[in-house]
């Protein structure tokens, strides 16, 4: 039981990160029906900038509280990522707004490659270690452990989600965003500056990406210029799972995907141990008697779960768990 609980905690932490990244995908998709495949790279840049700032401050020997240093790193990463998000939209997506849907998808991939290699040039190809300045006390309950960083990640991501919901549903900018999402032409006729709204959407999504980057960096302790690619794809799967374009869906999808991944990795080995059914054939029984196990699928399938989920969603419920709109526009 404690193992199960531990896996849920692991999954929720991972899921919180996926959820915040997925929000970036889903916001942009909701407004311009574009999958911004470079979003994973924004997360990576967020992590890298924060790492540089944190390392610089921690290395300078100034006596500041570690939490403040991380806060400073995050506060530097957010504007940088916002700038990247803004520039990205301006350079790669705005000129193609009327173009066929495939064109911006391809520029998105192009931007992602460019950002990745820029990061390689700036921060080198080596995996960089995140300075471990915060003491990370581990709390124990019911046999499971949860670290302070994990609590912070889950708490912060819930706060960010709440803040974003307030922004979208309670502010004038939110109204403008929802109007643009519904019908850009009409929204424009009603006096909404569509270009500004779209720009802001990218910028806000990128800011969320920066926060996610810092989370991933402090949680795992490593940052690498390729770290955004897989994370981005998984978060994209989470967004699709929840119903792309739907904010609550991205959060739900992210959390769910994190838990599925943790439980799947934790239990796939035991679940596919052929020794449970060793009466099927003599060969299996022989292997079981010799090794005590005959595992068909092992924990190396960790990265597969997200994409299996993605395939199932696309086949059986293309609009996702909470998406109302059938994805005819994708």
């Amino acid at each position, binding site marked *: 039981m404690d193992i199960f609980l531990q896996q849920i905690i692991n999954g929720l932490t991972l899921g919180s990160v996926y959820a915040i990244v997925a929000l970036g995908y889903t916001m942009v998709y909701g407004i311009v029906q574009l999958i911004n495949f470079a979003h994973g790279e924004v997360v990576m840049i967020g992590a890298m900038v924060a790492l540089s700032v944190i390392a610089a401050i921690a290395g300078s020997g100034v006596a500041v509280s570690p939490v403040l240093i991380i806060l400073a790193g995050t506060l530097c990463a957010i504007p940088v990522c916002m700038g990247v998000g803004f520039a990205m939209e301006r350079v790669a997506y705005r000129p193609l707004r009327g173009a066929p849907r495939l064109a911006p998808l391809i520029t998105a991939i192009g931007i992602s490659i460019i950002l990745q290699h820029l990061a390689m040039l700036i921060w080198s190809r*080596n995996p960089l270690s995140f300075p471990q300045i915060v003491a*990370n006390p*581990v709390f124990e309950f019911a046999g499971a452990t949860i670290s302070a960083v994990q609590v912070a990640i889950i708490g912060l991501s819930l706060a960010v989600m709440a803040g974003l919901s307030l922004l979208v549903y309670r502010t004038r900018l939110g109204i403008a965003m929802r109007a643009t999402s519904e019908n850009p032409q009409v929204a424009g006729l009603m006096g909404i500056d569509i270009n500004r709204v779209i720009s802001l959407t990218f910028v806000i999504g990128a800011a969320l990406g920066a926060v996610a980057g810092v989370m991933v960096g402090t949680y795992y*302790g490593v940052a690498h210029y390729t770290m955004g690619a897989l994370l981005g794809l998984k978060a994209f799967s989470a967004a699709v799972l929840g119903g792309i374009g739907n904010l609550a869906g991205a959060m739900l999808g992210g959390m769910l995907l994190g838990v599925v991944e943790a439980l799947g990795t934790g*239990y796939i080995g035991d679940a596919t141990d052929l020794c449970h059914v060793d009466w099927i054939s003599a060969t299996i029984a022989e292997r079981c008697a010799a090794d005590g196990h005959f595992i068909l699928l*092992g924990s190396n399938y960790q990265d597969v779960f997200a994409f299996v989920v993605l395939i199932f969603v696309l086949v059986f419920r293309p609009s996702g768990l909470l998406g109302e709109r059938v994805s005819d526009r994708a």
Partner: protein
Amino acid sequence: MPMHRNAMRRYHPLVLAIVVGMSLSACGGKEESSGAGAGSSVGGGAEQVTVRIGHAAPLTGAIAHLGKDNESGVELAVAEANMRGLTIGGRKVFFELMSEDDEGKPDKGPIVGQKFADAGVAGVVGHLNSGVAIPASAIYQQAGIPVISGSATNPQLTEQGFQVTFRTVGRDDQQGPAVADYLLARYQPKLAAVIDDASSYGEGLANEVEKTLKAKGVAVLPREKGTDKQADWKAVLTKLRGRKPEAVFFGGMDAAAGPLLKQARELGLTAVFAFGDGACTDKMHELAGPAAEGLVCSQAGIPVSSSSQPFLDAYKARFGREPLIYAPFTYDATNLLIEAMVAADSVDPAKLLPSLKSIAHVGATGRIGFDDKGDRKDAEMTIFTVQEGKVLPVAIVKSGTIIDFKDFAGTASTGDR
């Protein structure tokens, strides 16, 4: 298309020259042009030939830092050979490093190999990864080009019956048992877990560790796997925590091993952790923080800091940094190629191969000779532990016996090993 035509027109005379040169040598056989790259140099005396030495390693991607380190070892050896101004087969030889990025990908290995074969290199130092070196070796065998890896430790590389594959490091089936023997002697675990990163290297090493542990009566849990880019190991480690192993071995590189170790301690695993050479770097302390304390790890060969002083000085002077792990081994590999050329008095791969097989050389990593398969004779394995953030050697394992490092270090300074 127009670009292609332009390129053809521009290079036409050169292409013609090479084609004519190659066909001449093919007919006459008097001129040794194989391994001579694009022929005699333009500016210098007519008697100078350029000999290309290939180097392949991932220069991009997760372990590019190790690739660069390997490349630097080769670069240093090539530069030193050029300073010496060698004369081979009556002609002054200028060595040129042709470095290719194999991205650490198995499918890029043969492509890079073919590139070397087409460029007519005299020999290749590489590849860094076993998983890349093995598929590439078939190309080298076909082209008859000697290839010496300074870091590929998977046994299969030299078990294919090829004549051209060599290595200056030990094999996983020497390293795996060494680290397992050390674990057994020092920690006496009853139950162990083995994890790998599903690469040829990680899996091969993990297999050897598991085999040795089992042979000595230790129960081993079903194998857990991840990838070489994995940062999240919590699910796997949580599962292991439920089984309470006393020792955990991970076969993989430092970028994955650091987070693994850190997360294991966060989850409260108390087992002793052991890694192979890919995760036996100074970065472990940075990557895992205080969790790195007490880690046991092994390296094929001897510690970088125990390689010869002239090498260490020259490396530091040229690159302004310390070698990471395998630079001394690629440095030696390059020198072996060059030595073999000198001994054979030829830069023709077919002629230098026999002299490479019988070579006896004292390099930065000690005495080097090859057995029939191309493996290094009497390869040493070093066991390290992390103490107060430093990766310190504690023992040398040589053909099954564990020698305390302090005792070994005494003999090492005499240079006779």
